[in-house]
């Protein structure tokens, strides 16, 4: 499909490519919302490649502090050396900084995110007393996964309202099928069956399951089948087992898989 071999494959669901490009051109920060494994990260790397900007991805965790993003002094052999963090590097080079699952990070990261994500576009580095002005081709992208389980540490409205935002969901059946086909080259009929099965099981989210089947899991399953695994076994290992730890639910869902698949 793509002429450029390096361009990560991405099939748009709606107007997200235009929105991203316009946000980039107009120096606006962007927020991606959506469930896990629906293609947020792939989308960002696709866009970074397309716009020809370096990409700095940070997977946020609950011990991630502002210093991890901005940089710190290290002591090396009696000398101190300043090391830029990923955010600072992206600002200096004019790249895209992608903070994945930003709500997981410590609250003090907002101190550096806020001045960069409004019209000031500045990054003050206290330690080196520098004040970096972000160049036009710098862009800040954050992602988060809204859901019940995040309620106790949701994104603050004051942060949320600084970002242009795109909501992602699992793609429609047709689009999802072509994604799986391009990723794995599995035959059409099997791909259709996998996607139909997943869409049926997605209805069970919040009811019997905490999470629903991601596009990523379907890709894994299809990859295993393509590599020669029996479809039922592939579904068990890559589609059903990752969803739940409850043995009874796994067993029951496997009867559903057996009923759904025409092999």
């Amino acid at each position, binding site marked *: 499909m793509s002429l450029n071999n390096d361009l990560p494959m991405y099939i748009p669901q709606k107007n997200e490519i235009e929105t991203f490009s316009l946000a980039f051109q107009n120096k606006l920060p962007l927020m991606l919302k959506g469930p896990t494994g629906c293609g947020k990260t792939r989308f960002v790397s696709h866009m970074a490649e397309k716009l020809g900007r370096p990409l700095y991805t940070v997977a946020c965790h609950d011990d991630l502090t502002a210093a991890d993003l901005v940089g710190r002094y290290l002591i090396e052999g009696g000398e101190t050396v300043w090391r830029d963090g990923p955010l600072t590097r992206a600002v200096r080079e004019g790249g895209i900084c992608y903070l994945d699952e930003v709500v997981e990070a410590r609250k003090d990261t907002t101190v550096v995110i806020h001045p960069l994500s409004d019209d000031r576009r500045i990054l003050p580095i206290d330690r080196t007393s520098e004040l970096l002005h972000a160049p036009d081709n710098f862009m800040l992208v954050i992602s988060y996964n809204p859901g019940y389980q995040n309620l106790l540490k949701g994104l603050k409205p004051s942060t949320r309202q600084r970002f242009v935002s795109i909501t992602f969901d699992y793609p429609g059946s047709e689009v999802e099928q072509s994604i799986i086909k391009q990723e794995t080259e599995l035959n059409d009929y099997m791909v259709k069956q996998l996607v139909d099965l997943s869409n049926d099981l997605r209805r069970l989210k919040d*009811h019997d399951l905490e999470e629903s089947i991601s596009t990523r899991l379907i890709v894994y399953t299809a990859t295993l089948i393509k590599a020669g695994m029996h479809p039922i076994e592939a579904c068990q290992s890559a589609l059903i087992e990752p969803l739940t730890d409850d043995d009874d639910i796994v067993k029951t869902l496997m009867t559903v898989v057996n009923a759904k698949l025409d092999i």
Partner: protein
Amino acid sequence: MEEFVGQIWHKYITRAATLEYKEASVELEDIRKQLSLQFRAFGGELAIELKKSIKSNWQGKRTFLSKLAGAEQKIELASVTDNNLYLPQQIACFKEKELNQQCYLWLSALLANYKEDKSQSWIINNINAINRTLKKLPGLKKIYQNLVKLHLEQRVQLNQPKHNIDESILQSILKDPESICDLKPEQLNHFDPKKVYPLILWIDPFTDKVTQIKKNTTPETKSQDKPDTQAKKLKLHKKGEVVDDIDEKDGLMAFRMESIFSWTEYVPVDRTADDEEEDKACAAAEDIDKISVVKGAETTAAKLKFDLDLPSEEQDDITINTGIKLPEWDYRKNTLISDYCRLHLMQVRPSPHYEFSSRLKEKAKRIRAQFEILSQQKQWLKAQPDGSEIDLDQFIVKQADKLNGIDIHNNNLYMELRQNIRSFSCLLLADLSLSTDSYVNNQSKVIDMIKDALYLFSEALSATQDRYAIAGFCSKKRDMVRYYPIKSFDDKQTPEIHNKIASLSSGYYTRMGAAIRHATENLDKEASDTKLLLLLSDGKPNDVDLYEGRYGIEDTKHAVRMAFKKGIRVFCVTIDDEDNNYLSYIFGCDNYVKIQRAEELPEKLTKLYTLLTR
């Protein structure tokens, strides 16, 4: 001797007459969880609840042997309504356990894809559903075909020499579903399911009657429910039937004398007035399998109609306001009807008699002490000008700065252990409906357990920094939703709060959606970072009007979702022991907990609170 021979004969002939493989039987209760999950995964409605089929006598054809045995052919078939999914209590039609299990699997798939078209015949509806199912679930093809094959063998065995057109039509369709095209429309229209043997693999052809009757009789019996009768839940499901009043002029005895011993006959139980013999009526109801409710029968008691629910004005609680208008969600129209409910703020009339037991007071003291310790949990505050420990991170930074020749006057090099102050609000909302009036053991009722729980909860939280409020609710139709604000967020914990809790009593029904909406409004005014609505209930949403079953569930789900949108987490603690499929539908699978024994509620609730807010 005669009796002895008779018994042996009865045993022999009934076994021969019923096609059952007892040793291979599969019970619904054992696989209930799997089946309802399968049903949803196969595409069935999410809010539907799985229930046992109503045991009924097959209204159609019986085998010669079964007639000879005099055994009524009791058969349970599968069916689905707007609110419920009915599956047989057990299946034992096939020789092997696995086959019977497959039969359940097949039925759950078929029902998930069954869409009844009233203008079409039973056969057409079933064939369409089967085609739809097999198209969607090709993996079931083999299973279904195998079951049909085995079932056909049984039917052929049962068939009598007499030619039965309907039976042969059905058999040919079973053999080859395509053959339906060869049939003339009048053949199909004249097809009468009563003339064929029961077909376990298809939908029950006689479902209409049952649901219809339910609609006719529920409102009347509900409104006259007395507390005592409610406490006694009959675990068996009976087929309801409305029969005409007996015409006493007709003197013809239309049955053989010997069948008088059978219970399955019309017993004029007056369900609304027969109170002194209630126990007997219950026992009888368990024995018979058809309860007939006489419509329009004029007994003397029926003439005296009054609502037992309403207390007199001087005994009733005090209404504080004229009513707050609240919306309600109608899932059928998919709209939120504004100003549909009226919620009244109520004040309990203090009753001086109730005292919390000394054991509970002792427990309250202990839990309070625990909570005090918890709330004093401390946290390391970094980069402090003074403290008990050195902050190494800060120290390294300072050293680095120094080496760099930068001297920022940073002397915040210490860590200090301080009390953790969080910003948290919790509203505890308790269900006070009449169902809480039932007994959990010889001494206490559910409502007593709820009161104890509220008492312990308020005591425990008063030892913390968290902001909390307590309220109760019940309802009687949409214009009388009663909401009891027991403690507001700003009230101090005082003996008066204890009195209020002690004076609570149960009454009316559970219009959960309206109560949640009002509680949401209260919580929304709170400035805390985290807000929790803790709902304490003993059953599903219901009220005397249409607010029951799916309607109530969907409305409550809507209210919960709206609360969530406002950043309020709703968590439900329930002491309902029945199938709780609806709970995860309303609240989401992580947001409820079931408490098996109501006696455990008071302690569990406070424990749960610490877990949730850790």
